[in-house]
């Protein structure tokens, strides 16, 4: 099991629990949660995080704006980000990629899908830092 700490950002308590449990089953037990983008930005300043999983549709600050804020901040800009959302149009995916999200999953997801996406992102990030 890895000690990588993952920040889960979603306004649904149910989804945060499901993602947390799914991450535990695939070997990522360390997680921290936030209910929206604004809350998540605050968490980033107080907790060392290695990976971000975020929803899109959230009150206060949505996922897309959150990602843009993270990428604009030199302290956190290199953090890998996976978006898990119900939004699944071509336009949505392109918009998210333009905001520099690393990968994208349309809900509902399986733990295996989650694991493959995270490992894929980590591999890409490692390659880019070599």
């Amino acid at each position, binding site marked *: 099991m890895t000690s990588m700490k993952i920040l889960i950002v979603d306004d649904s308590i149910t989804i945060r629990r499901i993602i947390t449990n799914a991450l535990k089953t695939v070997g990522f037990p360390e997680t921290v949660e936030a209910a929206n983008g604004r809350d998540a930005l605050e968490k980033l300043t107080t907790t060392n995080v290695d990976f971000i999983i975020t929803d899109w549709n959230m*009150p206060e600050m949505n996922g897309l704006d959150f990602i843009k804020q993270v990428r604009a901040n030199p302290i956190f800009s290199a953090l890998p980000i996976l978006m898990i959302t119900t939004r699944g149009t071509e336009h949505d995916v392109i918009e998210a990629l333009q905001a520099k999200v690393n990968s994208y999953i*349309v809900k509902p997801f399986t733990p295996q899908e989650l694991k493959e996406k995270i490992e894929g992102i980590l591999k890409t990030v490692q390659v880019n830092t070599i």
Partner: protein
Amino acid sequence: MKQQELDGILQKAAELKVFCEYGERTVPVIDEIAAFVREISPAIEDLRAVVEVSMVNIPKAAEQLGRVTQATEQASTDILNTLDRMMATLDEVIGSVASGMISSDLGAATKKMAAIVKSLVDKSGWDEDIVKLAEAWDFHLQSMRMSGPTSNLERLLKDLQNDCTEIMLALQVQDITQQHIGAVMGTIQAVAEGLRKLTTGFFSTMADENLPPLPPLLIQPDVENVGDVERKKMVEALLSKARAGQL
């Protein structure tokens, strides 16, 4: 009368003549417009009545749907809590089964037997037959752990654990339906707001400040169908294009 004054009067008369001619053309048009307004005003009045009722009912419907969402989220949380307890119990039982202890009674009995066999071996001074008994007991214990009911039980328990995980994942539907409900409410609210603006200009018997406020739109009314295999394939295709620098 001076010529200048006469010219001024003639000018005014000509202007008056143009005005009257214009009036002759416009009066029928104004009559038609008035007839049209008289004809549609009952329909506008009916529409206004419907919109007024909707402006009261739509916030109530939004509130009710909000309560539905809260209730389903609470139910999902309760199910997740129960599943967490089940998974923890299953972990414990699987651990016990894997270490060969099917039940605490059987485990205690097994330990006792092992102690008795060892004592026998020591007391007999490593008598050949007693040593063979000890070896046979050891083999039997290993067999119990590696095959038969124990391994089947472990497999069944792990299947139960997987079923718990499946139930947990199925609860994602609560979030998806909440988003769909929000999108539907958003569409209804947008239509209602449009109708309200349309009918407000005709009548002012119900002032805007007497209408209950519409709840805020959390989700834009454009959430499309999600979760289907084609949608995921499309997303993966776009991600591949992005990685290849084609986007």
